[in-house]
């Protein structure tokens, strides 16, 4: 369970297959080979439009989809004027991961999350490390049919404390995610989403009712970057962050620093100012190292000094919990109490070495450390 996400997929989703094969034995999951589709389920959040068209209201793209066509995500299809999802229960990857890998640093440290995904995404980030599953269509990959009760059951039997909806973009498998979360909460399992935050307000507020933690990949603080590098928009993501804050769901932010594209001092300054102002100083922010991937193979790995510069800017703006990610062994992987400066959670990579918290308070000075600790 020490594989990185990249390792995980570079090994041909074998680990996922193995993990789910185990699940199949226990829970009777059904394999669907490439070319097959899980029977479609009517989607939530869409409206009828002119003719037989539909207007998708799940994400801000608001795809206007003709009969026989699919939305941008590639997983929702108009069939005769009704909108369907092809990925309800269609799990393409499943694995028990350390929660730190998502990354969540203030959420049940040292526990594992049963992490699942379906294919598809509502963006197309040029640096995507999981494009082999996020940028394909459901019929192009072998999947396992795992209804929500089985997902919840597997998390329980495998000792995972939470279910993480991750690897691709959970917003596009919204209905499945919601039902899994609802089914697992009654069995004492927490639920976390790892998302780009590109979702409309109404479905997001409803989702917050069953989520215990949400990690948002904030790609940039510039619209141009979102449009040109991610095929998305910044403004709706900033709106979503505020909705999550408003709903009181635990939230952490990851900012992947791509050399020359989103790592300028001005941009990081603006980003941190906005976070401090709109979300507050207690939201953990992870500045993570980019590795050449997908359509950005020509760019170098993020220099460490750029990450540390971002760290310095964030701290100067008053953010209390700032981390450097994808740099194993970096001092900032550990959580320090902003009041006394002592380490309260010491980490190396995904390994927890020490937790100095008593009931969510610093064991050294008694200061409350925000998060979900038990």
């Amino acid at each position, binding site marked *: 369970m020490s594989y990185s996400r990249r390792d995980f997929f*570079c*090994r*041909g*989703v074998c680990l996922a297959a193995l993990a789910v094969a185990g699940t199949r034995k226990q829970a009777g999951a059904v394999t669907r080979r*490439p*070319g097959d589709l899980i029977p479609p389920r009517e989607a939530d959040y869409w409206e009828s439009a002119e*003719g*037989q*068209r539909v207007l998708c209201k799940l994400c801000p793209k608001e*795809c*206007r989809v*003709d*009969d*026989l*066509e*699919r*939305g*941008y*995500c*590639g997983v929702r299809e108009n069939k005769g004027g009704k909108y369907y999802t092809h990925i309800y229960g269609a799990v393409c990857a499943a694995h028990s991961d350390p929660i730190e890998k998502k990354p969540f640093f203030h959420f049940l440290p040292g526990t594992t999350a049963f992490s699942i995904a379906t294919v598809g995404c509502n963006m*197309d980030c*040029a640096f995507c490390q999981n*494009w*082999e*599953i996020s*940028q*394909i*269509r459901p*019929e*192009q*990959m*072998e999947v396992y049919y795992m209804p929500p009760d089985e997902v919840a059951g597997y998390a329980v039997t495998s000792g995972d404390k939470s279910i993480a909806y991750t690897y691709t973009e959970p917003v596009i498998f919204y209905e499945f995610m919601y039902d899994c979360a609802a089914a697992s909460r009654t069995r004492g399992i927490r639920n976390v989403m790892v998302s780009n935050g590109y979702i409309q307000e109404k479905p997001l507020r409803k989702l917050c009712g069953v989520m215990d933690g949400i990690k948002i990949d904030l790609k940039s603080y510039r619209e141009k970057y979102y449009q*040109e590098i991610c*095929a998305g928009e910044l403004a709706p993501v900033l709106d979503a962050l505020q909705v999550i804050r408003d709903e009181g769901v635990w939230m952490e932010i990851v900012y992947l620093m791509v050399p020359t594209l989103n790592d300028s001092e001005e941009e990081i300054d603006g980003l941190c100012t906005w976070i401090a102002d709109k979300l507050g100083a207690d939201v953990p922010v992870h500045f993570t190292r980019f590795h050449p*991937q*997908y*359509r950005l*193979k*020509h760019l170098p790995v993020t220099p460490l000094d750029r990450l540390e510069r971002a760290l310095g800017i964030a701290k100067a703006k008053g953010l209390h919990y700032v981390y450097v990610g994808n740099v194993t062994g970096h001092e900032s992987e550990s959580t320090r109490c902003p009041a006394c400066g002592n380490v309260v959670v010491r980490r190396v990579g995904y390994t927890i070495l020490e937790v100095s918290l008593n009931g969510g308070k610093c064991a050294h000075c008694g200061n409350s450390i925000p998060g979900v600790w038990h």
Partner: protein
Amino acid sequence: MRRRRFFAHGLLILAACKSKTSSASRVGDESQVSRVISARDPAYSKIGQAPDEQVAGEMIARVLRELTGTPTLQESWRAILGNAKVVGLKPNCLSGRGVASSPAFVNALCRQLVDNYPGLEKIIIWERSDKDLRTCGFEIRTSGRIMCLGNDRGGYHQDLIVEGSIGSLVSSFVVDQCDALINLPVFKDHGIVGISVGLKNYYGAVHNPNKYHLNHGDPYVADLNRMPVIRSKNVLSLCEAFTAQYEGGPPFMPQWSWPAGLVLASTDPVALDRVCWRTIEEKRKEKGLPTLAGAGREPTYILTAADSEHRLGQADLKRIKEIVLT
């Protein structure tokens, strides 16, 4: 290469994949005049009906001879296909029947290639999926001189091809197997990108067509056709337009279709689309519908395909010579 294997590999290739041979000339210079040839079947009158195979074959022969300026079909096909041995045919089967490719038309073409192109080793009729082909009445054939099958069976080439801002896996038929491609679009309105004729038909070549629909397909349709592996192999566009549709596409809507009875041909994919765009605008005006721009879906990707960055063909109607065979 099986699909599962190349998802596991997933290498990035910024440049083009190698193409095999294609000696046919291409029209890409904006100063040149391109030609679009059309023939009409005056007997065709029933919307949605498949054409008569023999009539379709005769129409294909006529437009081809005119297009190449050659007296015999053997010379015509040699002029188009050069030294190609494996020829790919890309029909459009998205909407099932009605305003989709018909087996009669494709069979007529296959028969003509077999009879008149001595260099032919194999024809591959390919679409997105076996299901799409079956829905249109095609029989799946996975061996023999004439094969007919979907990308879901044939798979995609293992390397990502990036053109413009989108990266795609491209059909193995296109990249690895075919020496030349004949595009067999239909002639119809499209609710997102304006019209769906030749350029749009290559959405069926990539694993992620849903990523190409933003901004009414502009510049994504043009970018897709600029992929060297498509650009270098696409030698002819042969549009089956017995039934054409001016509104409500891509599904077949008989109330918005007309029995055009046409076969159109060009070696310039942009010119063909531009002529069809104009024709659809004329039809929409005749029916009291707004222009495609007025409907919010002007197919500007056709103009982009002709711009200095793409140079895929001629979009200036003044530089397109339309020849109507009577």
